[in-house]
């Protein structure tokens, strides 16, 4: 039996929208448990500290920018908190949250954030030149794949969060 007061979900989306087992939205979501598990494992894989290539801080900064631009307050707050936990300097976090990517001094990070901005706000204009700017900034092909999957995953995650949160709020209005 689960004690509601002590319920600490290991699932990020359940935790972000405070989806607890007594809610019908929780029950519905977990009827698709394969999706729940693959979503969580995707996140854990993309933010695995031991994944070679892009550093965890680079990946979290990309996620923060993606959530800020979408916008998704809930997800942006989550990635912001993880970055604070890793003691990333506030100045850099502020630049990303304000979308002032041009002022990021590290050229490799700047290239990643520029690519991310295009893909979040204007995916149809993510052309060959936008992609090839990444190897030019020193990213290997596996690193490009990580970056593209990361941005695309966050685009998915913010929409699952937005939809489930609306469903939960409707349930609570009833």
């Amino acid at each position, binding site marked *: 039996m689960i004690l509601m007061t002590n319920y600490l979900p290991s699932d990020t989306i359940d935790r972000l929208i405070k989806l607890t087992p007594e809610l*019908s*939205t929780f029950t*519905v*979501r977990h*009827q*698709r448990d*394969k*999706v729940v*598990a*693959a*979503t969580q*494992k*995707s996140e854990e*894989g*993309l933010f695995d500290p031991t994944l070679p290539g892009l550093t965890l801080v680079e990946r979290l900064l990309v996620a923060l920018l993606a959530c800020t631009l*979408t*916008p*998704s*307050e809930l997800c942006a707050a989550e990635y912001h908190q993880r970055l604070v936990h890793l003691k990333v300097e506030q100045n850099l976090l502020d630049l990303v949250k304000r979308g002032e990517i041009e002022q990021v001094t590290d050229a490799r990070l700047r290239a990643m954030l520029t*690519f991310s901005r*295009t*893909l979040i706000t204007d*995916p*149809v204009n*993510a052309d*060959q030149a*936008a*992609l*090839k700017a990444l*190897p030019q900034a020193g990213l290997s*092909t*596996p690193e*490009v*794949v*990580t970056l*593209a*999957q990361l*941005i*695309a*995953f966050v*685009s*998915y*995650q*913010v*929409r*699952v969060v*937005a*939809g*489930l*949160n*609306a*469903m939960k*709020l*409707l349930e609570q*209005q009833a």
Partner: protein
Amino acid sequence: MSERIEIKGFTNATLGWKAWLDVVSLDAATPEQIAVLEESHPQAKVSDYYLFLVHQPEILKQRSVAFNAIMYAPGGMPRAERELGATVVSRINGCVYCASVHAQRFEQLAKRTDAVIEVFTDPQTAGTSERERAIVQFSIELTSHPERVSPASIQALKNVGLTELEILDLMHSVAIFAWANRLMLNLGEPIFA
């Protein structure tokens, strides 16, 4: 296929797709990469898309599990309607390749093309019934403005008879195409026969 559709740059014709950067060659692939390709899609070993994404096999694997569970799971929203949602998202995001694949799947499952023609022509007004129009409207809102999705958005779907599980399936279908479209659009381009 019954009739070929060409509207505003979108089509239901079968397209190819090529990657803009180097793909993994099957000769050089690790056993893990081969296993993930085989799990992902029947044609993955001859597809530039999968051969590119398999540079990161574990990430591709989880994406494929999520994708297949969302689009093919039994029960809940009829599969044709999940494909309709996917087609709407691809039309809104401008992903010609994904739109062609999922327009075809909608046709195969629904045995008609009318809704696809409407989505390609003008997604804002598309839908051949109240239920379809509500599905299309929700798909557009969650794609373009996830921050505006509200309890009223969910209620609108309930009002035309969707169950909560069907609504969940629709949300997942829309969200997974936010993911899929961004990969197809930014890593390569469609090839027209």
